[in-house]
């Protein structure tokens, strides 16, 4: 395992191009009014870009299952922090007789 997985240079260049295209796309999309979809597209592209970096530049694609679990748990916990906190803000004032 010491040598690790050596990815071909061409792969790195491909990923690089994909990331640049993604960036360009986000900027372009921002100038069109898609209403609610703007956020979805923007964050969707950002997630895709992050995934590419994690999988290829950071070699997770070729790493042990443990690395997957560790990286995944980081994002899972972030999601916990976001979603449960928001559950408070979004449901404030639902109950009659209480205030936001």
């Amino acid at each position: 395992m010491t040598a690790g997985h050596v990815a071909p240079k061409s792969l790195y260049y491909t990923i690089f191009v994909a990331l640049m295209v993604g960036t360009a796309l986000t900027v372009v999309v921002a100038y069109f009014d898609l209403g609610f979809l703007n956020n979805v597209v923007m964050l969707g592209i950002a997630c895709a870009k992050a995934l590419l970096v994690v999988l290829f530049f950071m070699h997770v694609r070729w790493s042990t299952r443990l690395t997957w679990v560790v990286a995944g748990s980081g994002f899972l916990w972030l999601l916990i922090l976001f979603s449960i906190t928001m559950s408070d803000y979004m449901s404030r004032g639902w109950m009659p007789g209480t205030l936001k």
Partner: protein
Amino acid sequence: MPNHHPEHFPGPIHQPPLVANLQAIQPGVHVEHAHHPKLQHHFDDMSQQAEASTLGMWVFLVTEIMFFGGLFTAYLVYRWADPMAFQEASHHLSIGWGAFNTAVLIMSSLTMALAVRAAQTGAPPKSQVFWLVCTMALGAVFLGVKVIEYSEKFASGIVPGPNFNRALWEHPAGAEQFYSLYFCMTGLHALHMIIGIGIMAVITVMAWRRQFDADYYTPVEVSGLYWHFVDIVWIFLFPLLYLIGRHYGGGH
């Protein structure tokens, strides 16, 4: 049966050993074996050492995710509470600089990946050093742009605090809040870049001194992981800070 034992202490009892090599583990026995000069004494072999280091860095990156996570949560909550203000405030940021910096960071991630690859394949120090220097240079460009952006904000009075120019905004409160988060998030990110460049400088010197080869390149690999992480943070910061609500047009 146990011979002498002091008051209350029951002393050893006779039980079979838990380990197969009970005698060998005891002190006094001396074993010497040949090993790689970079192997620390408490590891069995190089691969155990390398795996420990990469796992350690991944675990550290998880803590980094949560560290930024607190700020992202604040952003999420406040943007949800006052979306119009965030849109207005976001207009004041330059999409051009933001996009440029995103491209710069992505490129630095590429050069970093190539630096790791160079070490991995045992490429000559010159090429390792080349990619590392490229990475640092791109990092410096990013920071330079940030300096330009920041100073523009100081000049036009959109730095939160008593001197915040409330007259600029339809939503002065929300805008001040947005810029508080903006400075926290980008400032912390920039701090990570600075630390990253520092680490990279050390690694470059080591690479120059021929410390890395196909058997031992963990430091390059581990710093690479850190650098890519910092890149990922920016991949999210860019759309969240610069691109919201562009379609509301106009601005100023």
